[in-house]
């Protein structure tokens, strides 16, 4: 990224950025109008009604409780109220858009750790403090932290979300302009908080494919998750093939995002949070019909490992297999390209 010495307005490089900027412009106009109005009135009154010995302005005793005063009070209560409701509704509608990643989003996983961002692509590629994304694709980040609260902020995309330990948070965007933009950690996280920065590279489709093709040599996330699954011995109890039941532990095939009935009769959705909790706190929500026999894996699996395991479980549910939304299955098994993927490709348009 080329350092710039001066800037007045941030780059706008995502689909939402234009909407946020319009809203901002509206707020600035309203604020400027009222600030200038008040400033003008204050200066004007201070001059017009300046103290002059012996001169008492007519109406000097009007205390605002006359009929005219009441009308004024109502006017300057109702107009700001009306304006502020517009502000609220406009802002809320943008926020709702930001809350709901489109169904066709491509998933990328972020793990915050003091003081670095670890990025894991579905196809297996990993990055640190860099994030390569294709242009004009909806991208959904699933994020968690290994220690304290961080916040994954990309000002050029006008988006940010806190990254918390012990749970997953989500943020999505659609990059619209190739280039390199700042990633900041926006939630104070300790000594080198200001060093927890990175760069997001928006590549056009072809450059992104090229970059992805360098791969990690470690297989896709789901494949790595499967390896971990086997290594931890999860498969000894949990069947992962359709229609395979053993009575010890629930079959994982097809459970992702489906309802499971729990021992106490309530139901829950087997989303990322539930899977995570069931690995770390297996006794918290036991599926109906199974015994409390699973040991906790708390402390045995890193946050990144957990993401891979979840990705593996998701891959067992074909209808939501997010691989379908990836542009194409990347070639990741080329041993010769093992570590090459770590080196960022210079984005198009940058020398």
């Amino acid at each position, binding site marked *: 990224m080329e350092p710039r010495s001066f800037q007045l307005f941030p780059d706008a490089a995502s689909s939402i950025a234009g909407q946020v900027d319009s809203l901002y412009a509206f707020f600035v106009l309203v604020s400027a109008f009222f600030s200038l109005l008040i400033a003008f009135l204050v200066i004007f009154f201070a001059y017009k009604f300046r103290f002059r010995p012996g001169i008492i302005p007519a109406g000097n005793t009007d205390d605002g409780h006359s009929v005219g005063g009441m009308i004024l009070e109502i006017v300057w209560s109702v107009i700001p109220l009306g304006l502020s409701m517009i502000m609220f509704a406009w802002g809320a509608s943008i926020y709702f858009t930001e809350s709901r990643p489109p169904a066709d989003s491509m998933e990328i996983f972020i793990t915050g750790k003091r003081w670095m961002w670890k990025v894991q692509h579905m196809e297996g590629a990993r990055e640190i403090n860099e994030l390569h994304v294709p242009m004009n694709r909806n991208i959904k980040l699933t994020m968690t932290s290994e220690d304290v609260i961080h916040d994954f902020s990309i000002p050029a995309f006008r988006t940010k979300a806190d990254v*918390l330990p012990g749970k997953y948070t989500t943020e999505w965007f659609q990059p619209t302009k190739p280039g390199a933009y700042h990633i900041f950690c926006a939630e104070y996280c300790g000594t080198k908080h200001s060093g927890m920065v990175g760069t997001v590279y928006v590549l056009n489709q072809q450059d992104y494919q090229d970059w992805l093709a360098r791969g990690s040599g470690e297989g896709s996330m789901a494949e790595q998750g499967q390896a971990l699954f086997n290594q931890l011995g999860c498969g000894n109890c949990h069947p992962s093939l359709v229609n395979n039941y053993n009575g010890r532990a629930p079959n994982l095939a097809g459970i992702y995002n489906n309802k499971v009935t729990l021992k106490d009769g309530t139901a829950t959705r087997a989303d990322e949070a539930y899977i995570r909790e069931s690995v770390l706190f297996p006794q918290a929500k036991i599926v109906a019909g199974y015994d409390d026999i699973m040991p906790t894996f708390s402390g045995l699996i890193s946050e990144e490992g957990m993401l891979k395991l979840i990705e593996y479980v998701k891959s067992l549910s074909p209808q939501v297999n997010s691989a379908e939304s990836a542009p194409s299955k990347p070639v990741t098994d080329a041993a010769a390209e093992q570590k090459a993927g770590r080196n960022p490709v210079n984005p198009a348009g940058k020398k």
Partner: protein
Amino acid sequence: MADHSAHAGHGEHHIVPKRVYFLVFTALIVLTWVTAWVSTVELGALNTVVALSIAIVKASLVILFFMHVFYGTRLTKLIVGAGLFWLILLLFIAMFDYWTRTWVGVPGR
């Protein structure tokens, strides 16, 4: 205290008869043992409702009679009411976040 003279009657100390204290005390003891007993009976979700309702009744008895709010000034009642109202605000508004966390169906939203 010109504008308070109208309420002067409230300020006189009102001596509550002993009988009231004993009645309230009996009610409190009975309710304590009832609530302890009910907790051993399977009522499902009603267990919580009963336990909390009994606690609220007991607390009200103490506030109204042992603490003399029943005989107190409007201002005292207002202060007690405000305290409870704010407690409810704290609990309910914060809980609203927890109740609605799954509504959008996206982790962290």
